[in-house]
């Protein structure tokens, strides 16, 4: 059966670059990102839409790219962790926050955390700690206990709002 299925054209703008490929309809968006265009920053964790390691921006919304077909993203703009740094290559406030607050240990969940947090801060530029925790509830981390991830996001929010963030990493 599978060899009879025709590949169909999809055009997805990834980190500002238009990517056109012929894909099988069953190809997941995360496989399109990792295998077709070789951006391996987006991780596959649980592969069951629980862990959030595969989170990317799709037209400004956070989605789990393991639970979406590439054909569903046809005509959309995707942003991955590779597109998160500032235009001049320096770290964004959020990336800097993760670095300064030790918001990662093994780093596996980090691309998904960063992508989710970047949308969270766009939707809510100065979130409370509770709002941060609710906002990243779809992203699992098995190392940090979340404390420093929350601080990393608070650090970024403070910097983006022109404040100093006084707390230290734990």
């Amino acid at each position, binding site marked *: 059966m599978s060899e009879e299925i025709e590949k169909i054209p999809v055009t997805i703008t990834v980190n500002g670059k238009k990517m056109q490929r012929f894909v099988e309809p069953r190809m997941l968006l995360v496989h399109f990102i990792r295998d077709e265009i070789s951006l391996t920053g987006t991780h596959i964790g649980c592969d069951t839409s629980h862990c959030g390691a595969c*989170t990317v921006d799709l037209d400004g919304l956070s989605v789990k790219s393991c639970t*979406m077909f590439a*054909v569903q993203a046809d005509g959309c703009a995707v942003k991955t962790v590779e597109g998160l740094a500032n235009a001049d290559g320096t770290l964004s406030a959020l990336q800097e926050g993760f670095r300064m607050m030790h918001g990662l240990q093994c780093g596996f969940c980090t691309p998904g955390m960063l992508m989710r947090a970047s949308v969270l801060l766009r939707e809510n530029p100065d979130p409370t700690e509770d709002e941060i925790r609710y*906002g990243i509830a*779809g*992203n699992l981390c098995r190392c940090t206990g979340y404390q420093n991830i929350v601080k990393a996001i608070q650090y970024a929010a403070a910097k983006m709002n022109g404040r100093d963030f006084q707390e230290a990493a734990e």
Partner: protein
Amino acid sequence: MIPGSFTYYRPSSIEDAVKFLIDHGDEARPLAGGHSLIPMMKLRMAAPTHLVDLRGLSALTGIGEVDGTITIGAMVTQAQLQASHLLTAKLPILRETSALIADPQVRSVGTLGGNVANGDPGNDMPAVMMALDASYVLTGGAGERRIEARTFYNGAYDTALQAGEILTAVSVATPPRHHGYAYEKLKRKIGDYATAAAAVILTLGDGKVASCAIALTNVADRPLFAEEASALVVGTACNAATIKQAAEAATAITDPSGDGRGPAEYRRAMAGVMVARALRSALSRAQGA
């Protein structure tokens, strides 16, 4: 995990989508947000060979109110329900319920239509729609028909939806301005289905409950409208004794299975606790309004 192969069709009208489903029969499925279907396909527990993607059908989007009826397109996402000013003002139970469904990423994509049409007893919106006495618009080869949420569900993944039909919209009579509402959901963690959950909609008149509707999530093979429990509350002041009676009557119609969320007895007991909490919360909201 890689799903089985399928052909993919993106129609430009509901009629085209229906025609595709009719042409391909049992092998075809509509694809809404895909957050129930795609995981099942990845596990190969579902293997449709033809998918018709409803995304992009503008007729299935939008939230509006005309002549006292609120209509919500099937492809409206949970995130859009949460963000809607109209719903926040007039049908706040939807916002309260959406906030308890899955996580932000899933709510970006998961739709109201998928949630109510899928027939998974763990989905939260069906009980809410039963409490609201909502109706569903089903579009098929012979045109549109309407069915009440309270009669739509036959069993797990078994609904009144016929082959070749698509659930295209949900409509609800706008409740009175000062109605009481609550959705109380017990779950083990964010993103989990309910161990037990209860939806309540009620109105007050002269200090007594003028109308009341109670419905339950995930404590049977289908969502349950607790008709007897609802009737017990009407005409009373909804005091502690009445709440206890209603919770017991609602518990009596549950038939949960034991699973990772707990043994059946526990889930039955929790259904009663959720009903009592939802009644108290709905009552205080109606009184405070």
